[in-house]
């Protein structure tokens, strides 16, 4: 059946089963490949998007659970003030290695800073521990989040 999705401010109509995970609708149906597949089981965070601002694992979110909501993905996050700051902090800190996990890392970090502009170390641990990075960029992710906060304050 046809489902309507609002992604990064644009309406899209897709014709898939209701229980199709949002991840595959984004990637395979709509061609938005910035959101990544890592585990398919909410274990790695690579597929993180925002649904009404909440960080959400799109690999286990059925598409009908996202209708009527505001979905944002890595492709659109740079248009928000915090999104831009986080991306810049990532660049300034040279966080990325293979880069495959970084869409999800950035989406988790932006959600964290949007809901909690001054996170403690424990808040960062909590918000980011669901995002695996096999290249081990964790230290730089921590530092980049702090850099984005400072930029925010400044």
């Amino acid at each position, binding site marked *: 059946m046809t489902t309507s999705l609002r992604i990064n401010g644009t309406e899209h109509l897709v014709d898939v089963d209701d229980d199709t995970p949002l991840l595959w609708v984004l990637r395979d149906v709509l061609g938005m490949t910035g959101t990544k597949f*890592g585990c398919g089981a909410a274990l790695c965070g690579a597929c993180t998007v925002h649904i009404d601002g909440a960080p959400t694992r799109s690999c286990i979110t059925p598409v009908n659970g996202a209708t009527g909501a505001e979905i944002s993905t890595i492709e659109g996050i740079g248009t928000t003030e915090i999104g831009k700051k986080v991306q810049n902090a990532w660049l300034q800190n040279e966080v990325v290695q293979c880069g495959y996990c970084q869409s999800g890392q950035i989406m988790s970090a932006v959600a964290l800073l949007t809901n909690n502009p001054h996170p403690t170390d424990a808040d960062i641990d909590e918000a980011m521990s669901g995002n695996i990075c096999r290249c081990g960029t964790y230290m730089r992710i*921590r530092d980049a989040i702090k850099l984005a906060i400072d930029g925010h304050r400044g």
Partner: protein
Amino acid sequence: MMMASDLLGGAGADALVSRRLFLKASSAAGGALLLGFDLLADVDRAVAAEQETFEPNAFVRVGRDGRVKIIVPYVEMGQGNYTTIPMLVAEELEVPLDAVDAEHAPPNEKLYGNPLLGGVQATGGSTATRAVWKPLREAGAAARTMLVAAAAQRWSVAPSSCKAQDGEVVHPGTGRRLTYGALVEAASAQPVPQSVELKRPEDFKLIGTSAKRLDAPAKVSGKAVYGIDVRLPNLKIATLAQSPVFGGRLKSVDDTKAKAVKGVRQIVRLDDCVAVVADHMGAAKKGLEALDIEWDDGSHRNLETADIQRELEEATLKRGAVAKEVGDVAKALETAARKVDATYQVPFLAHATMEPMNCTVHVRPDACEVWVGNQVIARAQAAAAAVTGLPLEKVAIHNHLIGGGFGRRLEVDGVTRAVQIAKLVDGPVKVIWTREEDIQHDMYRPFFLDRISAGLDGSGAVIAWRHHFAGSSILSRWLPPAFQNGLDPETIDGAANIIYGLPNFRLEYSRVEPPGIPTAFWRSVGPSHNIFVVESFIDELAAAAKKDPVSFRLSLLDHQPRAKTVLALAAEKSGWGTPLPERRGRGVSVQFVFGTYMAQVAEVEVTNDGSVRVRKVVCAVDCGTAINPDVVEAQVQGAVMFGISAALYGEISLKNGRVEQGNFDTYQVLRLNEAPTVEVHIVKNNEPPGGMGEPGTSAVVPAVSNAIYAATSIRLRRMPIDASALVNK
């Protein structure tokens, strides 16, 4: 990104091969690669009126707009190759790094084979930087020499009175200047220099600086295209189930329910695999789950890890191939005042790259195209040719960014599988492995088992060292000529070339290929096993001799000044010897592998329930010239996290012939909340660069294990760490 194969056109690469060599092989390391410098400017090409780019060799393209394309023979897997390799060329070519674009090399082993990996066009073993260090600077210098000659000719001045800077040739005497872009045609007509002069280290402008990574912006905006992101018209998506027991066969499959799933288009049956082809991965997965499959498990149906362990144990009791022998170990052991014996073992490990295995293929009657991220693209091409029966030149490989390699993509099993499926599909198909399929059909870091003994004299000095281990030899399969007299250099790396001065030494290796489980390279490969054993055992000897682990090691390193320096530096920066709270400890390791000296001190905390938290790792590294110090630091940080994942959690086990782990819940890896601080101290010098992708992984495992000993007096001789052994210790 446009692929180099497109740029060159179908026959381009071959045509280039036929052009004459212009730089002579000048060192053993660079030799094979330099055979690649053959493509220069034959006259007809050079004077062609429509000359759009200046192509002095296989690696450099200068466009009319002055932009420089660098054909990077080694793939980007996160290790910074797309930044450090262009830096080498840009340094000698005298162009700013932001005028440079990096491009994957097409499959062509003659042009782009890796001299450090037997001429295979491969990125692995921390070889990339070492293999290109001289040849790629020479490629840049040759291009620069020709551009300067072209400008000098136009101005009728001596080339020596001109200089190259910032993408231009200038004549300081008259203030005249010409951009490289304006010199494309004229430079192409210049003779190829027979030899070139490289810049002196003190004149480097880029090398040694932490230049920004060229691949980063696309990776933070979601625009970077990995193999899994390929999009094509009418592309179908497939996912697969392979025989859960290696070597098993498909007996039957009922696909009635799967075919009813919306979006499912086709069920593909192979001898040992079923694939569901669909409009999108959601439908493909749903279809796969709806299949009712029966397997014939075959001869490995009862295989357990313990069977393999037993086989290796028995092998170490027989004679192995002697890898190295110094003095008379047997006699020295007899006279030793104290003898220490131990058995070590390390498990099978999966790679679990963040980007699951995938490969996109379009098979037509007369051609085949493959889109993939792979570390050995010439082999990928050969694999596709073998499955389709097409000649090599009918197989085009479009290589992509790699979402983590760690050795996994030095194999082409995934390409073979995807082409087998695509052969039965009309139109292009992207085959994606689920995470479970990726982990259960990996090719694994081998299981190794070691028996080791040493003798100490009355003063605690090591007078004998006898080491015998058994396990798989990856090179014997991957590069057969490298396996000789029962040995290959990679499997024994770190054990045979032990850095300590030992008067009586013997290393034996027994090759045992485990049945029913394929093995392959895995970040830091041989040393990932050997350094764990050697650096743990030397720690045992220090304890037996009642010596401090750092000073004990230093006393065995008089002939190794660079190793001594990194060890002393890591000790100093870590506060070695200063008091720590209860249940905390520091452990050390030192090594020389992949051309890099490294010492690490890990600080761990062991809680009462036995769980281990690595708090901090201090690393001192001498990798010769650090081309990009920030990339060196990032590689160490990442390699350390990778090693800690293995130490804390990494284990692939077999039960009833099946891999027991499946996803990140059962094959855990380190997460941000568990990540230590990693401090990296680089020793500066102008030695040739060493490899950086892997040393951090092999060094951290023994450092952590030794730290646990310091905290608890429990010596762990097998990985991963067994928390139950540490409860209340």
